[in-house]
């Protein structure tokens, strides 16, 4: 095993989208326990250096495999398909794009009205939708082995996760503003 082996091989997991999160977490701890720099505090320089590189690699692998979107993108990249490079793939998907614009408009409005309730409601609705998308994506990857469809699905999820992050940011901003007001009062 060397530093450039892929993340699934590193974690001894089959390269699939559906994965056992508990097993992933357990492997992560086992690996860190054997490579972490704290285990090599008294070792020679070469070993300390290697240990840091491995620990960084294991952290990166864990982060990538743990998050479903990062995992999907990674699987596609392993298969030689880069969802980020596939620009224009969504151009035909006008329904999706229209829907995205509607979402965005709703978020903008809620933020403008400083309505945390509306943002929370949007967040919940989006979470349900995203969940359904991930289930569909799992089917593309693991059941149908349809990578072309998986690229499209992943690109959609990239949009939606970005939207989710925006809602989170807007909520955090409003919460902080509210706290600051209360403290000032």
């Amino acid at each position: 095993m060397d530093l450039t082996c892929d993340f699934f091989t590193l974690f001894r997991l089959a390269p699939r989208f559906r994965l056992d999160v508990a097993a992933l977490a357990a492997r992560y701890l086992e690996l860190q326990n054997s490579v972490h720099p704290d285990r090599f505090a008294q070792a020679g320089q070469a070993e300390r250096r290697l240990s840091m590189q491995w620990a960084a690699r294991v952290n990166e692998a864990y982060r990538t495999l743990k998050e479903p979107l990062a995992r999907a993108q990674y699987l596609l990249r392993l298969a030689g398909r880069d969802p980020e490079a596939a620009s224009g793939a969504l151009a035909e998907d006008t329904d999706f794009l229209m829907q995205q614009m509607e979402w965005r408009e709703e978020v903008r409005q809620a933020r403008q009205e400083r309505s945390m309730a509306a943002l929370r409601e949007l967040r919940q609705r989006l979470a349900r939708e995203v969940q359904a998308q991930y289930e569909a994506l799992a089917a593309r990857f693991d059941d149908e082995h349809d990578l072309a469809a998986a690229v499209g699905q992943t690109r959609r999820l990239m949009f939606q996760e970005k939207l989710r992050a925006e809602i989170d940011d807007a909520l955090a901003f409003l919460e902080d503003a509210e706290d600051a007001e209360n403290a000032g009062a």
Partner: protein
Amino acid sequence: MTLFQISEPGESAAPHEARLAAGIDLGTTNSLVATVKSGMATVLNDEQGRPLLPSIVRYLPDGTAQVGYEAGDWQAKDPRNTIVSVKRFMGRGVRDIAYGEALHGEMLPYEFVDAPGMARLRTCAGVKSPVEISAEILKAARARAEAHLGGELAGVVITVPAYFDDAQRQATRDAARLAGLNVFRLLNEPTAAAIAYGLDNAAEGIYAVYDLGGGTFDISILKLSRGVFEVLATGGDSALGGDDFDQRIFCWVLEEARLPPLSSEDARLIMVRVREAKEFLSRHDKAPITVKLSSGLTVDLTLDARTFATITENLVARTLRAVKKALRDAKLLPEEVKGVVMVGGSTRMPQVQRAVAGAFGRQPLNNLDPDKVVALGAAIQANLLVGNRTGEDWLLLDVIPLSLGLETMGGLTEKIIPRNAAIPAARAQEFTTFRDGQAAMSIHVVQGEREMVADCRSLARFELKGIPPMVAGAARIRVTFQVDADGLLSVRAREETAGVEAEVTVKPSYGLSDDEIAAMLKDSAAHAREDAQRRALKEAQVEAQRLIEATEAALREDVRLLAAEEIARIETAIARLQTLILGDNRREITLAMDDLAYETQEFARRRMDQGIQRALAGKRVEELARGAASAPPMPAEPSGAFAPSGLPAPSASEASASRPEKTT
């Protein structure tokens, strides 16, 4: 502990006598030293039996320094040469400090000298950097530990606020070096507290550590499970602490007593009384503040608990906002937190206790001395890292507090490693040129969460030169960020188009350059040049001995991984180094160490590989076989010493539109 057995029975390294290690809590107001004695972590007292080492340094005209209580006695009489709370200036420029002063409405009695990077202070013993001043505190801590333990320390763990940025961490490391300490690890204060608390209470589940010290505030959310301390998120404010509460009382005194502008002596005098009043209010409803000023005026006031709570309300609120943010980052709700560990003397204030209880909906845990718990945790970790295993092992997984990135076109920040990423971390990203024939790219490394570079902390700037002439957007410049287990960053950039390579590695130099440190080591405390050289030789000898011991231990464990001739080569290199250690040629020792390191490189790789194989051995054999049968193609990743993450590079069109760096 069954989960983490490190070496097989009968395979452990040969028994050796316990090596001396200590944990140092280098605090804003007070520092502490602790060590593990016969399995128990203990804070080391001074000769008068006092556990605290006040973080106060007074310089004398003859160039010597007093540290601790001795220096504290001079706070009011010699304020300019008596530096308190120097931690607040670590890794900070004059402008940061001036901004802080304005923000807190205070006036510091020091004369600051602007210097590139970090501010310096003019004292009667010359211009001193915060790193040098902190080194004096560390030297005192070291002396205390060595007097107690009766020998030289093999190494220490020094704690830093989790929210310290790279410049502040680097400055702390530099101070330790100046104090002649071998630092095993910089450990985040809340994490240290969690170790002391967790091991003591066999705690499991999600815990929050609320750490309000003299000058810094940290909040960390950790997952504790058998043998693992995993930091999920951290947050805070590296310029918020007990000092700010003092300042609020101080301002209240000025207002209530309608005092005219004060001399720095009088200001210090009031400040000392203010601190006493604050501490008094932790146990009483009201506190008297009586001060006789040099002008003949007398201040005679009474501060009650309710007024104190009111004038400090928004300070407490600021900590709660950071708590919320950390919980959000960890994707957790307050009710999912099983316990809140209180750390730092400032958490004794009743209004803080009440606020934390309210925020988490549960009473915070106060069963450990909030002043000592960080030092105890550091000592426990130092004991583990020095190799004095007590049979029990644990693993500590920490994160970086603030995102690391670089400046792109238009003064925007491009984040490379996000906050709360687990460390060590390495991540790479590709950039390209903006103009045709662009031969150099300037790389500006920043830390912070804001979108505009101007709002983030600047860590380092360097230039990548020698990019071959190409049209705009054709060059592929891979920038790799690496954060080590101390949370310290190094950055490198490489131009990767066919056959051409230019590379540069930087360490942020916001602290001090290596030359500056070397110069300070030379100048320090009336040591002659000869002395510095002797010390450098000694350091090399100690380091070489360490390397030999490590190599021999590795050979004992895993000699079967080597062919006979490899063993012979390593043994020759050891023998040569062993001979040179006895001599006094530092250069030769260093060269021989390099040789030995070179000869053991492959051995180290095989050992690491074996460790990984072992970690996964015997687990789910069927899945293992399945994984191997359908092994996916290897990702096309450039080989490099840092094993870059292989994040997908932005597409060419995207890169030229939004990601090029400015030219020089």
